C-alpha cells in the first residue's frame, strides 16, 4: 500500500495471472471503502491500474472509455512510466493526466448521499398519498442502514433472520428482494424489534409500532431500489443481482457522516427547483449555524489537538457542540485502536468492558439538538461494534448478561430531565451554556465545531446570559483590568462581537479543561478575519496561551461546499501566554491537487509561519488585528517587509473621511476630502422621507453601468428625472460634487468624475475641492493599479478569504502620501501632473466617437499600463517589490479559495512551462550571485524535467562564470541525483516528500527538486528560496 501524507492512496496486488472478475470485485470493494484512489494489479508482464473513484458495475471492461480502468502498462514498453508512477501519484501529476477517471462526484460518499436524499424524498412524496413525514423517513432509513451494516458485517445472520421468519440473506437487498412488500414490512420491523432487544433498548427508540403503521409497499420498493444501488437522480436502475454497495467495506465514520449530512439536507421544493432547494438547504443550515464536519476535517482537528501526546488513553474528552459526534467517533476509534495494541491478549469481555468504559466515561458530547444526539449515539455504537469480530459480539452478549453488565451497547444519550446518572452517559442533550459545576475543569481536551451563528441569525439566549453574567469569570477579570486602567470596557465587543456564537464557545470551553488541558476548536475564520473582533482578539489572545492557528480559508469551497465563511482551527491552553514575545504558530495550507478526493490537507514548509503575539496586540490596538492574520496568510517574508513599508506611509484616511455633524446639522469635523455612500431610494420602512433636492436634469449614474472605466463621461449618465421623488436617506451634497472618485461596492471599479453626478448607495465617492482635481485623478490611477490590488489582497479582512470585497474603511487605509509628504515633493508633483494629463488624454481619446465603442476598453487598458508605471514611480516600488505585486495579482489572487471543479484551472496549480522555470532559475541565480559578489565563484542553473512524475530538478553548480538556464529531459543523471536526495531526505525527515520540494546543498552544487505546479516556480518563490538558501549557505541553517 502506498500512503501519501499518511493516507492510504494506492493498493498494490501481485497476481500470477489476470482474473478480470476478481480484479473488478476488488475495485468494487475499494470504491466502497472510499479511502484509496487506485488499485494496481501486477501480473509480472502487465500492470493494470484501476480507479477507486469510478462507480463499480457488474460487467467486464470492454470499452476503452470504461472509467474503472485507468490504464494498462506493460513492463517491457512502459518501464519509464512505471518508474515515475509513484512520484506522479505523490505530486498529483498522475491524476491530472487521467482526470476523467478520477471524478470525486462518482465516489461512494457522494453517490450514497445523493441517493439517500433522493430515496428520502420519494418516501416523503405527498403527491403519492402515502408520503411519510421527514422524521419518520429519517428514522426508517437510519434503522435500515444500521441493519444493513449488521447483516453485511455478519454481526447478524441466518439465526436472527430465522427467528423473524425470513430466509437467509447476505444483505438487505437480498432480503428485500426475496419477499413481497408487505412481508418485507413485517420482517423488517420484527428484525428491528429483535435488534432492539438484543443490543440496546434506546437504539431504535420506542416509536417502532407507530412507525410501522405508516410504512407501505411503495416505501419498500423505494428501499429496494436504494439498497440495489439505483441512480435515483439519473433514473437509472442498477443491474439485477449486482450489489453496488458493500457495507462491510464502507467505513463507519463515512456512514455516520453521510447520515448526518442527509439529515441536514431538506426536501426539495414542490416545483423541484434544484437551485432553490440548494439555497433553502444553505439557508436552513445557516440559520442553525450547523455545518457538519467532514470526517477528514475532524481527523485533522484531532491530529492537531493531540499532537505529541504519547497516549490518548486515561484522558477525558468533551465536545461542546457534538452534532453527529464525529470528533467523538474519531477519538474513540483511536483510543480503541491504542487500547487493543497495548492489550493484545485481553479477553473479549475485558475488551468490551474497557471500550464501553471509554465510551461512557472518557467521552462526553453536548448538543442542544436531540436528533444530533441520536446520531452521535448511532455513530458511536457503530464505532464500538466495529471493534469486534462478528462472532465475538454474540459471545460477548452472553458473557455480559452472565456478568450482569447489561446489553452489548450501553445507553449513551442523556436527555435533559432523565433520571439516569450523567456520569454514565456520553451524550448530553442540553445547552452547553446551561449552568454547570460538575464538569468544570475535568477534561484533558475540549474539542469540537461550535455553531457558526452570526449577525442576523437567531442567537443563543443561554450563551448571552452566561457571557454577560457574573458566572463568566473572564467578564470579572476584564472588568477588574479595566477598572485598574480607569477605562470602561466594551463587553459586547470583547465577548460577543458581531453576535458570533463561536466566540462564546471560545470563552466558555477553557473552563471545562483541566489546568494542563487543551482546547481545540474548529471556528469560523471571521473570529480572526473581521474588523469587528479587535477587542475580542486583544483580550482573548492576552488571556490564553495559543499554540497554533490553522487557517483553512483556501479550502473553504473544498471542505464545506455550502459554507460562505471559511474555517480556522485554534488550539490553546487555558493558562496565560508566557510573555508578550511569544509566537503563535500559524499554518496556512493552500489548495493542492494532490488527491482527487481532497482527502488530505498537505502543509508546505512555506505555509508554516510564526506570528509574534506582540504584533497582534499592537494591531488590535489600532483596530486592525485581522491584518496580522491576513498578511501572514498569503504573504511571504518579503511581502511583509514591503507591506510594513506601505503601512508606514500616510493613509488615505488622513485626508478623506465622512463629514461629522452634530444633531443640529452643524459640521463638527470635515477632512480635506469627503467620502460617502450614495442616496437610498424610498422603502416601506422609511420613517421620514427626505427631499432629494435635485433638478430633473441633474445627471445620474446607474451602478449597473459597467462601461465607465478610469474616467466618467457625461454620456455614461442620464438625467435623474422625476421618478424618485423622495429618499430614505439623503447623504451630504458634498459627496455628489466634482471632482470626485466613484467606487463600486465590490471595489472593482474606480472612476474619476469631472462633473457632479448623483448615484445610489451601491456606489460611494471621495470628493474634494476643485484645486485637488489632479490629486483625485492620481488617486483614481492608484486605486486602479496592481499596487492597490496587492495592498488590499494582503490587508483587507475579506478579500481572498470570504467575499471578494473591500470595506470602505479598509479602502481608506490605502497608503496615499501627498506629494509634500514625500522625500522629493517636486518629483512627486510632477508624477501627479503626468498622471492627471494621461487621464485627461483618455477622455479626449474616447471623445464622443468611442463612448459606446469597444475601442474605449483598449484606450483605457493602454492608459492603465502607463498609469501603473507612474504609480510605481510615485511609490518608489523597487524591481523586487514589482515581482511581489505581479505574482500576487496575476497568480495568487486568481488562485484563491478554489472549488473542487476549479482546481484544475487555478494558476498556482497549473503546470509551469519552461520559460517560467527559466525565469525562476534566473532570479534565484542572480540573487545568490549578487550576494556572492565578493567571491570569485558564481552559481549556474540547469534543469532536468521529469514530466511524468510532475517534477523538475534544478541544479545550481559552482562555476566561475554564470550561464543561462538550460533544461533537458530527465535521464540517468536525474535518477542518480534522486537517489542522493532520497538518502539525504531520509536522514532529515524519514523520506522524501515530492510535494513539498527538497533542496540539498552539496560541495559543489545545490539540487532543488520541486513539483511542476507554478506556485513553486514564480519569481517571488525564487526570491524567497534565495533568502532561505543564503541562510543555509552562510550559517549552515543554524542561525535562521
Amino acid at each position, binding site marked *: 500500500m502506498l500512503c501519501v501524507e499518511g493516507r492510504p492512496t494506492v493498493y498494490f496486488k501481485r497476481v500470477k495471472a489476470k482474473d478480470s472478475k476478481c480484479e473488478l470485485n476488488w475495485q468494487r470493494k475499494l470504491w466502497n471503502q472510499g479511502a484509496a484512489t487506485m488499485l494496481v494489479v501486477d501480473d509480472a508482464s502487465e500492470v493494470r491500474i484501476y480507479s477507486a473513484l469510478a462507480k463499480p458495475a457488474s460487467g467486464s471492461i470492454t470499452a476503452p472509455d470504461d472509467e474503472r480502468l485507468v490504464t494498462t502498462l506493460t513492463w517491457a514498453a512502459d518501464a519509464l512510466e512505471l518508474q515515475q508512477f509513484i512520484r506522479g501519484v505523490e505530486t498529483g501529476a498522475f491524476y491530472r493526466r487521467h482526470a476523467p477517471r478520477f471524478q470525486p462526484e462518482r465516489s461512494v460518499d457522494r453517490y450514497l448521499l445523493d441517493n439517500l436524499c433522493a430515496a428520502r424524498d420519494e418516501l416523503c412524496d405527498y403527491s403519492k398519498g402515502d408520503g411519510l413525514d421527514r422524521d419518520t423517513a429519517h428514522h426508517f432509513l437510519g434503522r435500515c442502514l444500521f441493519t444493513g451494516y449488521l447483516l453485511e458485517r455478519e454481526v447478524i445472520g441466518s439465526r436472527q433472520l430465522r427467528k423473524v421468519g425470513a430466509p437467509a440473506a447476505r444483505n438487505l437487498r437480498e432480503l428485500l428482494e426475496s419477499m413481497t412488500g408487505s412481508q418485507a414490512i413485517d420482517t423488517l420491523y420484527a428484525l428491528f424489534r429483535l435488534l432492539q432487544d438484543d443490543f440496546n433498548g434506546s437504539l431504535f427508540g420506542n416509536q417502532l409500532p407507530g412507525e410501522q403503521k405508516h410504512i407501505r409497499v411503495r416505501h419498500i420498493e423505494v428501499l429496494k431500489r436504494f439498497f440495489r444501488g439505483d441512480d435515483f437522480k439519473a433514473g437509472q436502475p442498477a443491474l439485477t443481482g449486482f450489489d453496488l454497495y458493500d457495507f462491510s467495506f464502507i467505513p463507519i465514520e463515512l456512514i455516520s457522516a453521510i447520515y448526518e449530512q442527509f439529515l441536514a439536507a431538506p426536501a426539495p421544493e414542490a416545483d423541484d427547483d434544484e437551485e432553490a432547494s440548494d439555497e433553502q438547504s444553505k439557508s436552513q443550515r445557516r440559520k442553525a449555524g450547523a455545518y457538519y464536519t467532514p470526517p477528514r476535517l475532524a481527523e485533522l482537528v484531532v491530529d492537531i489537538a493531540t499532537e505529541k501526546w504519547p497516549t490518548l488513553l486515561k484522558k477525558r474528552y468533551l465536545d461542546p457542540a457534538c452534532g453527529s459526534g464525529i470528533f467523538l467517533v474519531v477519538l474513540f476509534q483511536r483510543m480503541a485502536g491504542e487500547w487493543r495494541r497495548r492489550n493484545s491478549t485481553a479477553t473479549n469481555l475485558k475488551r468490551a468492558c474497557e471500550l464501553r468504559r471509554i465510551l461512557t466515561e472518557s467521552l462526553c458530547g453536548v448538543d442542544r439538538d436531540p436528533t444530533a444526539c441520536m446520531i452521535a449515539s448511532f455513530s458511536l455504537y457503530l464505532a464500538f461494534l466495529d471493534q469486534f469480530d462478528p462472532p465475538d459480539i454474540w459471545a460477548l452478549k452472553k458473557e455480559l448478561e452472565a456478568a450482569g453488565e447489561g446489553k452489548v451497547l450501553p445507553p449513551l444519550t442523556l436527555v435533559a430531565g432523565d433520571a439516569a446518572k450523567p456520569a454514565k452517559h456520553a451524550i448530553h442533550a442540553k445547552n452547553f451554556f446551561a449552568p454547570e459545576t460538575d464538569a468544570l475543569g475535568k477534561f484533558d481536551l475540549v474539542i469540537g465545531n461550535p455553531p457558526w451563528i452570526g449577525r442576523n441569525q437567531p442567537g443563543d439566549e443561554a450563551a448571552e446570559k452566561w457571557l454577560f453574567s457574573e458566572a463568566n469569570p473572564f467578564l470579572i477579570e476584564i472588568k477588574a483590568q479595566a477598572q485598574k486602567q480607569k477605562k470602561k470596557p466594551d463587553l459586547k465587543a470583547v465577548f460577543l462581537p458581531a453576535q458570533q456564537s463561536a466566540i462564546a464557545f471560545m470563552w466558555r470551553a477553557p473552563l471545562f479543561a483541566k489546568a494542563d488541558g487543551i482546547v481545540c476548536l474548529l471556528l469560523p475564520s471571521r473570529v480572526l478575519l473581521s474588523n469587528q473582533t479587535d477587542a475580542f482578539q486583544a483580550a482573548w489572545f492576552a488571556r490564553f496561551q495559543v499554540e497554533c492557528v490553522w487557517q483553512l480559508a483556501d479550502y473553504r469551497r473544498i471542505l464545506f461546499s455550502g459554507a460562505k465563511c471559511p474555517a480556522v482551527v485554534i488550539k490553546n491552553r487555558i493558562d496565560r501566554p508566557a*510573555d508578550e*514575545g511569544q509566537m503563535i504558530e500559524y499554518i496556512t495550507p493552500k489548495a493542492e491537487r494532490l488527491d482527487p478526493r481532497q482527502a488530505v490537507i498537505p502543509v*508546505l*514548509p512555506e505555509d508554516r509561519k510564526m506570528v509574534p503575539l506582540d504584533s497582534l496586540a499592537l494591531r488590535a490596538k489600532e483596530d486592525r488585528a485581522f491584518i496580522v492574520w491576513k498578511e501572514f496568510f498569503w504573504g*511571504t*517574508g*518579503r511581502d*511583509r*517587509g514591503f507591506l*510594513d513599508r506601505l503601512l508606514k506611509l500616510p493613509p488615505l484616511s488622513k485626508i478623506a473621511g465622512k463629514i461629522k455633524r452634530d444633531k443640529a446639522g452643524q459640521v463638527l469635523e470635515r477632512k480635506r476630502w469627503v467620502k460617502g455612500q450614495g442616496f437610498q431610494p424610498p422603502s416601506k420602512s422609511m420613517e421620514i422621507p427626505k427631499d432629494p433636492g435635485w433638478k430633473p436634469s441633474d445627471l445620474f449614474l446607474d451602478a449597473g453601468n459597467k462601461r465607465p472605466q478610469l474616467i466618467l463621461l457625461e454620456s455614461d449618465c442620464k438625467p435623474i428625472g422625476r421618478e424618485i421623488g423622495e429618499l430614505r436617506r439623503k447623504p451630504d451634497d458634498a459627496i455628489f460634487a466634482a471632482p470626485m472618485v466613484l467606487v463600486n461596492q465590490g471595489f472593482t471599479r474606480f472612476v474619476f468624475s469631472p462633473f457632479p453626478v448623483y448615484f445610489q448607495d451601491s456606489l460611494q465617492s471621495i470628493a474634494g475641492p476643485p484645486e485637488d482635481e489632479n490629486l483625485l485623478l492620481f488617486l483614481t490611477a492608484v486605486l486602479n493599479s496592481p499596487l492597490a490590488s496587492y495592498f488590499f489582497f494582503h490587508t483587507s479582512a475579506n478579500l481572498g478569504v470570504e467575499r471578494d470585497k473591500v470595506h470602505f474603511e479598509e479602502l481608506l487605509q490605502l497608503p496615499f502620501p501627498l506629494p509634500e509628504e514625500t522625500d522629493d515633493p517636486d518629483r512627486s508633483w510632477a508624477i501627479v501632473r503626468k498622471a492627471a494629463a494621461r487621464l485627461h488624454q483618455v477622455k479626449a481619446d474616447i471623445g464622443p466617437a468611442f463612448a459606446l465603442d469597444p475601442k474605449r476598453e483598449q484606450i483605457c487598458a493602454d492608459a492603465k499600463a502607463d498609469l501603473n508605471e507612474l504609480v510605481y514611480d510615485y511609490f*518608489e516600488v*523597487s*524591481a*523586487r517589490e514589482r515581482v511581489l505585486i505581479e505574482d500576487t495579482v496575476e497568480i495568487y489572487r486568481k488562485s484563491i479559495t478554489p472549488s473542487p471543479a476549479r482546481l484544475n484551472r487555478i494558476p498556482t496549480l497549473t503546470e509551469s512551462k519552461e520559460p517560467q522555470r527559466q525565469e525562476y532559475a534566473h532570479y534565484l541565480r*542572480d*540573487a*545568490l550571485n*549578487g*550576494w*556572492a*559578489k*565578493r*567571491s570569485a*565563484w558564481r552559481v549556474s542553473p540547469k534543469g532536468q524535467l521529469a514530466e511524468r512524475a510532475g517534477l523538475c530538478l534544478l541544479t545550481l553548480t*559552482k562555476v566561475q562564470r554564470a550561464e543561462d538556464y538550460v533544461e533537458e529531459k530527465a535521464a540517468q543523471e536525474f535518477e542518480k541525483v534522486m537517489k542522493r536526495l532520497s538518502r*539525504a*531526505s531520509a*536522514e*532529515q*525527515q524519514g523520506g522524501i*516528500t515530492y510535494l*513539498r*520540494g*527538497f*533542496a*540539498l*546543498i*552539496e*560541495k*559543489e*552544487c*545545490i539540487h*532543488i527538486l*520541486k513539483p511542476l505546479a507554478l506556485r*513553486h516556480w514564480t519569481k517571488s518563490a525564487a*526570491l*524567497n*528560496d*534565495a*533568502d*532561505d*538558501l*543564503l*541562510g*543555509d*549557505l*552562510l550559517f*549552515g*541553517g543554524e*542561525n535562521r
Partner: protein
Amino acid sequence: MIRKIRSQQLGRELFADGLVGLVLDFVQETWKGIQLPHGIRLEKRITLLFMKELNRCCHEDTAYDWAFFPEVPDCNAEGKEVSRIDIGVSAPGRRQPEYCFVFEGKRLNISRGGRTISNAAEYVGPAGMMCFVTGKYSSGQSEGGMLGYVMDGELNPARSAIVDRINLKRTELRLAPGTAYSPSKQMPKAPFNGETKHSLEKARKFTIFHLLLPIQRN
C-alpha cells in the same frame, strides 16, 4: 521547500567573508554618496539620515536586500529594555526583530569653541564600544560595528585618537591578549578602518569593526 545541508564548502566559497563582509562593503559604499547639509551636526540626526540613505540604496540596488532599522531596542535576559542600538540590519527577506548585525555610531573630531576634540573617549566609552563589551547589545552575536563619523574629514588623527584610547582602555575593553586595533581583511580597501577582537565573559569571542566615515558637506 525542505532543505538539507550536506556540505558547508559551497557556502564558504561563495560567501567567504560571511554576511558581515557584504554589509560592511555596502555601508562604506553608501557613505561615499552622502553629503550632509551644513546644519546637521548631532550624532542622532547623522545616523538617521545615513540609515535612510542605506535603505534607499538597498531599495534601488537589486543586489542588496538588507533592511536597516533605527533605534533598535536591546533587552536583557528578562526581556527588559536596557539600551537602544543605533542601527539594526536584517538579512534579505527577514524583518524586525531578526537582526544579523548591529551598528553603534559616534562622532569623532568634533569642533567645539574653535578647538577640535577627538571624542575618542565617548567612542570607546560606555555608550560606544563598551556597549558590545558589556554584552548590553545583542548578546547572541559575535560581531558588531562602530561607525565613527569624522566631522572634519581628517581620518588619520581620528584613527590615532581611537587607537590610543583603545590601548589605554584595553583591560576594560577586554581586548583579546596580544591583539590591538588592526586592519581588517573584511575592509581591505579602507586603510583607516580596522577591527578589534575581544574576549568577553564566558569565553565569548567578539569582533568590533571600526568604520571611519568622513563627513562631506554639500
